């Protein structure tokens, strides 16, 4: 890996596929979306098998040291939704949230690989609480994560946090909805950006994997329903739905504004584009999807009679050097066709964020064009639709 890249050069280069830097030569986004390397592993529990399994997966990707040694790493975890609303008695980390042991294992292995500093970042729904406090409120032990390696810190990126100004990320090619995004400094003050996601479905975007996880990087102070009109608010209030899902309002004027106000206000149109352009503007160098335990139906409490939710144990981990490629494998593991687009499950009501990401040159969906290592997908296939069908059949409510 080139050691003399500046952060901005790295960011720009990462648009050509972080996998290129980790896994070897690949196509430049200027010509075509690059392929990626993805590792799949059976992992049935969050117990002692977790760290060696992840270690082996990272080796299959070319080794963590090549990516993180001497670098500052930002790990975007997934703590989405109203945390007081669980799926029955199942814990958030067993359904919708990245499991703390997967976070801890990732941090630990990054530390072992020589990461200079590791910052765990997330914008939990509508709060300025420290991430440690959010974790404590779920009965997690944040010290376990902070102590998993040297120089580990947390930052709530819903607002300015420890920074003095927001960082601007422009979308290569000018963007589809917004030309760029203003984010917390942590997303710029890192050499390596990791999306640590959950293997979930989503009511509006079909699936929510490593690409969709980046959506939660957007600060509520700018993109929340209570954001300031002209300038970011000081404190985060409200969710992102008003701005991103339905365009009921625009982001704070200090941030790049929507390119065309006549664009559809349908979440199925907007969200996939916003997610794809966010991933193009703030590229993911390493995508990890926690599918040891998860939930079907939708993320958080957005299930419905015809979209029932269930806590499940797919027992799988997926990691890759390209977010589109990794999510494509994730979809395959979930029993979906990664080449599917609007009208075909899971994209019954939305465009495919993966196809849009491919169009933006982030990566390719076609499994035959990506290198897949580890456990064959067929051996870890966990058919999310079949789970839903079984629930509906049992309830006799299929509509």
């Amino acid at each position, binding site marked *: 890996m080139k050691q003399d890249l500046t952060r901005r050069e790295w960011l720009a280069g990462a648009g050509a596929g972080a996998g290129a830097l980790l896994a070897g030569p690949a196509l430049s986004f200027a010509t075509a979306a690059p392929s990626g390397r993805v590792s799949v592993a059976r992992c049935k529990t969050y117990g002692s098998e977790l760290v060696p399994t992840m270690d082996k997966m990272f080796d299959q990707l070319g080794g963590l040291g090549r990516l993180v040694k001497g670098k500052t790493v930002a790990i975007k975890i997934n703590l989405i939704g*109203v*945390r*007081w*609303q*669980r799926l*029955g*008695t199942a814990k958030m980390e067993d359904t919708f949230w990245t499991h703390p042991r997967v976070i801890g294992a990732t941090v630990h292995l990054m530390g072992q690989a020589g990461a200079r500093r590791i910052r765990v970042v997330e914008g939990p*729904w*509508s*709060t*300025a*609480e*420290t991430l440690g*406090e959010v974790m*404590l*409120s779920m*009965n*997690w*032990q944040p010290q376990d994560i902070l102590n998993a390696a040297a120089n580990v810190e947390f930052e*709530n990126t819903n*607002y300015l*946090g*420890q920074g003095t100004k927001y960082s601007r990320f422009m979308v290569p090619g000018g963007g589809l909805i917004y030309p760029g995004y203003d984010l917390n400094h942590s997303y710029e003050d890192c050499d390596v950006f990791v999306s640590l996601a959950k293997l979930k479905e989503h009511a509006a975007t079909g699936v929510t994997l490593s690409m969709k996880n980046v959506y939660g990087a957007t600060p509520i102070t700018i993109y929340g329903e*209570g954001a300031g009109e002209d300038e970011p608010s*000081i*404190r985060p*209030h*409200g*969710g992102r739905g008003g701005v991103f899902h339905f365009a009921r309002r625009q982001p704070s004027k200090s941030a790049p504004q929507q390119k065309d106000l006549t664009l559809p206000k349908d979440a199925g149109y907007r969200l996939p584009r916003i997610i794809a352009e966010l991933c193009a503007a703030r590229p993911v160098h390493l995508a990890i999807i926690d599918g040891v335990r998860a939930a079907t139906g939708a993320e958080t409490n957005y299930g419905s009679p015809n979209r029932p939710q269930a806590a499940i144990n797919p027992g799988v981990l997926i990691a890759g050097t390209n977010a589109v490629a990794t999510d494509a494998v994730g979809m395959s593991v979930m029993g979906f066709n990664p080449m599917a687009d609007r009208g075909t499950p899971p994209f019954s009501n939305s465009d495919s964020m993966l196809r849009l990401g491919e169009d933006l040159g982030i990566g390719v969906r076609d499994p035959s064009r990506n290198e897949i290592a580890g456990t064959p997908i067929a051996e870890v296939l966990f058919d999310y639709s079949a789970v839903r069908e079984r629930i509906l059949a049992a309830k006799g409510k299929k509509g």
Partner: protein
Amino acid sequence: MALNADSVPMRWPAGPLEIARREKAKGSSTETAEVLRYWQDPASLAAIQGTPVNCLVVSWASGLPADASQQQALKPLIEKGRQAGLGFVGLIEGEANRPAAVAAAQAAGLSAVAMEGDPPASGGVPVIPWNKSNQGRWTADSAILGISDGLWPGIPQDRGVVSAPTNLPWVDSNGAVLLIARALAPDKAIWIDFDAPQQAKLTTEAYMLAVADPASYGASWVVSLDDQLRADLTAKKQPALDTWKKVADMLAFFEQHKQARTYQPMGPLLVVSNFGKSGWDVGEEALNLLPRIRQPFRVLARSQATGASFAGLQAIFYVDQEPPDPALRQKMTAFAKGGGTLFVPSQWPNPEGRPMPAEPYLLFNVRALGKGRLAVCKEDPPDAYDLVADIQNIISHRNDLFRLYNAPSMNFLYQASAQGRQGVIHLLNYSRRPGSDGPLFYVKEPHRSARLVSPEIASPTELQWAPQEAGGAELSLPRISVYGAVELES
């Protein structure tokens, strides 16, 4: 009948004064007037037979020409009611001739009168102060205090189920003002008065919540039925009779569990204020919001804080802009030096301690003070939600006593007996509809037993503790439409 803490009050709209007032205010339908006439008939008392209601609050005088005829018209009702052991309170309002109204009340044998402001010098019957919550006469010489501006509890009709900054829907509750009232008048019975919204079609559950919300906080709703329900009750329509039975059952439930009224709210945070002009807005709104962010707390009148024990507390929030007297300041800073956290308003002269390294707190400058912290608010007045959120963030969830899941429209209130051996967690569902899942309750320190009691279930249900790997235990509760309580025994 002498009135006391066991009195169960109910508004009894009846007679010419009620008719005149309604005609003056908004007009009155023939049917409503008929019902108001019927309810002055002693036969109407049959409606409360067999219910806990034992005190009727009647309009007595309001400065209208109908005052005299009202007092005359109610005589048979009062006479019959007194024979049945009922108490009567005459409400004196507006421009009424107060001495004359009080004298008439004495002559008619009322148990008490209720009025806003100062009572006339020559009484003759007990006077219940009947004031807005921020003008309460907390030290008045009365065993009962009335709060005249209660809220119909629930998710506000005009807002729908909207998400608030708390992540959870806004709810209207009387909890905050009742906690203030109990802190400022700890030995008095609190009655809270609010009418049913006349425009809305009210469900049975709405009435049940109207009883449960004040009762959970140790107070009594002055039961007030809407015109349509009273008309339907008069006509003996079965749905109305069913609703009234449920209301009566809810009243009876709280009478059966009235020992909980002696329990005190418990929590690691103590809110100290005299809730006067400088502390009312911030204090009342903070007490409204703390339950929404699931932060257990206690409330203490500033006047009693110097002599109170701070044992078991993690933090004190001193609300008032005017500084405390030196003794209280010394006591609270000593608490912080011993390891607690003291939250104070922006006008806190010469803050003790030294600034701490940059902390990610938005509303407070946190200073190291001995083994603890002094947190000085940066804003005056602060945004109430940001205030309580930052207080909770600084206190930390590490030692949460309780956490409530799968109940976005619910508030809970934890109260414990003086010795701490018995506790009760009141659960109030402001949506008045059961959720898709039952509430899930995390308890840091499992007790010997936990059982659910509720007028919604036939008999108490023993709850099973589900120990958690990281400590504590969880209790899975059945779905609750309006109210349930977890009784804890250690």
